[in-house]
C-alpha cells in the first residue's frame, strides 16, 4: 500500500476522548444538530474523496492558474462588451447573487468543520470552507474590471447589502441555510439537496449555454467551481445515511424542506437565464428539460438509493415546474426597475420556442406577452413606464418571492392568521414550511411588512430608492423596447 494511503485515513480520523468537558458540551446539539448522537455512533462516517491538505492545495493551485489564464485572455471589458446583452443580464444576476452567498457557505462549512460529529467530516468541511472562499473570490476577480464599465455590474457588489426585494429573499434563504443551520441540517440542506440535487442545472446546463454564447470566462468559472462542489457535496450523503438510520422522519423533513426552497431559488436564477435571457441560438434545452434530467431523474435516483421517499412537495414541484418561473419572469419584466439587470421581451421566435417547450402552460402565458408587446408597440421605443407596474407587489412570507404561485387563472396565494398577524404564502408548501417552524420565521419582515410599518415607502419610485437603486442602474428592457419585430409590418 502506498505510504499516502496508509497515513491518510489515520490522519483524517483524529477523534479523541475529552477529559475536561462533556462531549455534549463540546458538541452542543444546537450547533452539532439533531438528533444528537455520541461520537461512537458517528465513527464509521466516511466519504469517497479523502483528499489530503497537500493534495488539495496542489490541485487548487492548478485551477487558479488555469482560471487566471482564461481571465487574462478573454476577461477584459472589450471581450465582455461583445456578448449578447440578454446574456450580460445572466452574468449580472449571477455576479450579484453568487459571491456573498458563497461567503455565507464558508461560514456554514466552518461551523461543520468545528461542530461536525466526526473528524473526517470536519476535515472535509474545512476544505469545503476553503472551496467556498474561492467561489466568493472567483466572480469578484472575474468581474472586477467591469464595475467601472457598467453601473449595473457595479451594483452587483451592493445587492446583499441593500433592501432590494431580491436581496431580502436571498438573505432569507442564505441566512437560514448557510448561516443559521446546525451541522446536520447544513449538510443535508446544502450538500445533499442544494448542491447534489440542483447545482448541476448551473454547472452542466448553464455552462453549456455560456460556451455557446461565447462567454468563456463565465463557462470556466462555473466549471472551476463545479470541480470543488463535486467533492464537498459528498459530505451530505454519509450524514444523511446516518440520520436515516437514527431518525428517518427528520431526515425526510429536511429533504422535503430544502428541496422546495432550493427549487424556488433555482426557478429564479436558472429559470430566467435558460428560458428568457440566453439568446435563442444558445439554448440547448429548456429549464424544465434540464430540471427533468438533472433533478427529477438524477436526484430521484439518489433518494431511491438511500431509501428515502420523494420530497413531500414533489407533486407541487412538478405542477410548478412548467409555469412558476414564467409567472415570475413576466411579473419581474413589468417590475424590471426593481432589479439591477435588464430583461428581454420574447419576440416571435422566442415565443414559438416557449410554446413548443411548454405546450401545457404557454397558452395561459401568451396573452400576457401579447399585452406587453402591444403596449410597447403603442408606446414606442424608450417609453419604459407604459409596460411597467406602478403598484407595489406582494411577497410570500416564507420564500420572500413575489406571489406568483399557481396559474394566471388561479393564483395559489394562501392566507393564515397567527398570533394576531395575517401571513400570506405563495403556495401550500411555503405555508406548511412556515407553520412547521413559526418561531424561526415569524419575526422576519418582508417588503410589505416594512411598507405597512412605515419603514419603506409605498410609492414605487421611492421604493426603488429604498431598494438602493437609481436611474443609473435599475433594470430596463434590454433594448429599450426597440425590437425589429415591433416595427415589422403585419406583425400585429
Amino acid at each position, binding site marked *: 500500500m502506498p505510504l499516502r494511503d496508509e497515513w491518510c485515513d489515520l490522519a483524517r480520523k483524529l477523534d479523541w476522548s475529552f477529559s475536561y468537558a462533556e462531549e455534549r458540551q463540546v458538541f452542543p446539539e444546537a450547533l452539532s444538530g439533531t438528533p444528537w448522537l455520541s461520537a461512537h455512533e458517528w465513527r464509521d462516517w466516511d466519504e469517497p474523496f479523502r483528499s489530503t491538505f497537500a493534495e488539495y492545495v496542489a490541485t487548487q493551485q492548478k485551477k487558479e492558474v488555469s482560471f487566471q489564464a482564461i481571465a487574462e485572455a478573454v476577461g477584459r471589458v472589450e471581450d465582455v462588451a461583445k456578448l449578447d446583452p440578454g446574456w450580460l443580464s445572466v452574468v449580472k444576476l449571477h455576479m450579484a447573487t453568487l459571491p456573498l452567498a458563497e461567503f455565507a457557505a464558508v461560514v456554514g462549512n466552518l461551523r461543520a468543520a468545528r461542530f461536525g460529529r466526526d473528524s473526517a467530516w470536519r476535515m472535509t468541511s474545512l476544505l469545503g470552507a476553503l472551496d467556498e472562499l474561492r467561489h466568493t473570490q472567483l466572480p469578484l476577480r472575474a468581474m472586477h474590471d467591469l464595475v467601472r464599465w457598467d453601473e449595473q455590474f457595479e451594483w452587483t457588489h451592493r445587492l446583499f447589502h441593500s433592501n432590494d426585494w431580491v436581496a431580502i429573499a436571498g438573505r432569507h434563504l442564505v441566512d437560514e441555510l448557510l448561516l443559521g443551520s446546525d451541522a446536520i441540517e447544513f449538510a443535508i440542506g446544502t450538500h445533499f439537496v442544494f448542491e447534489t440535487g440542483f447545482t448541476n442545472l448551473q454547472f452542466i446546463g448553464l455552462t453549456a449555454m455560456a460556451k455557446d454564447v461565447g462567454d468563456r470566462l463565465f463557462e470556466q468559472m462555473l466549471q472551476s467551481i463545479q470541480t470543488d462542489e463535486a467533492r464537498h457535496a459528498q459530505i451530505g450523503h454519509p450524514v444523511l445515511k446516518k440520520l436515516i438510520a437514527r431518525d428517518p422522519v427528520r431526515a425526510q423533513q429536511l429533504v422535503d424542506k430544502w428541496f422546495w426552497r432550493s427549487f424556488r431559488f433555482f426557478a429564479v436564477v436558472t429559470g430566467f437565464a435558460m428560458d428568457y435571457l440566453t439568446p435563442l441560438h444558445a439554448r440547448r434545452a429548456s429549464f424544465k428539460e434540464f430540471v427533468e434530467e438533472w433533478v427529477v431523474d438524477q436526484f430521484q435516483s439518489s433518494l431511491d438509493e438511500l431509501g428515502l421517499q420523494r420530497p413531500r412537495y414533489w407533486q407541487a414541484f412538478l405542477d410548478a415546474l412548467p409555469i412558476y418561473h414564467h409567472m415570475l419572469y413576466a411579473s419581474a419584466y413589468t417590475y424590471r426597475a426593481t432589479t439591477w439587470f435588464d430583461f428581454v421581451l420574447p419576440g416571435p421566435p422566442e415565443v414559438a420556442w416557449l410554446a413548443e417547450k411548454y405546450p401545457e402552460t404557454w397558452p395561459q402565458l401568451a396573452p*400576457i406577452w401579447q399585452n406587453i408587446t402591444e403596449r410597447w408597440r403603442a408606446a414606442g421605443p424608450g417609453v419604459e413606464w407604459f409596460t411597467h407596474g406602478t403598484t407595489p407587489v*406582494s411577497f410570500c412570507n416564507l420564500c420572500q418571492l413575489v406571489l406568483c404561485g399557481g396559474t*394566471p387563472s388561479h393564483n395559489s396565494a394562501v392566507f393564515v392568521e397567527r398570533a394576531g398577524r395575517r401571513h400570506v404564502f405563495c403556495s401550500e408548501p411555503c405555508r406548511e414550511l412556515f407553520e412547521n417552524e413559526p418561531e424561526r420565521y415569524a419575526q422576519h419582515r418582508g417588503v410589505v411588512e416594512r*411598507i405597512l410599518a412605515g419603514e419603506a415607502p409605498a410609492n414605487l419610485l421611492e421604493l426603488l430608492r429604498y431598494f438602493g437603486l437609481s436611474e443609473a442602474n435599475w433594470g430596463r428592457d434590454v433594448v429599450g423596447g426597440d425590437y425589429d419585430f415591433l416595427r415589422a409590418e403585419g406583425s400585429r
Partner: protein
Amino acid sequence: MALPLYGFAQGDTLGLIVLAGESESVSDLAQRLARAAAPRVALGERLRVLHRGSLLRGDLTLTEAGIRALDRVDVLAEVDGG
C-alpha cells in the same frame, strides 16, 4: 382610513398590494386593480370583485362589503350572463 389589500387580477401573474379607502366602492376598487395589472392583462371595463368566495355588488363601499385590511380580493372580467 386606507385599507391595504392583496389584489389579484384574473389572468395576471402576481399579487399586488393596493391601498384603498374604506368608503371607496367595490367598483372603484375593481378599476384600481385592473389599472394596476394593465401592463400584463387587459380586463376590459366590466369587472367583478370576488372576496371570500362571494362576488360583491359594485355599489357597496368596502366597509359595507366586509372587506378588511390585508384581505384578498380578486378582480374578474365580467362575462355575458355572468
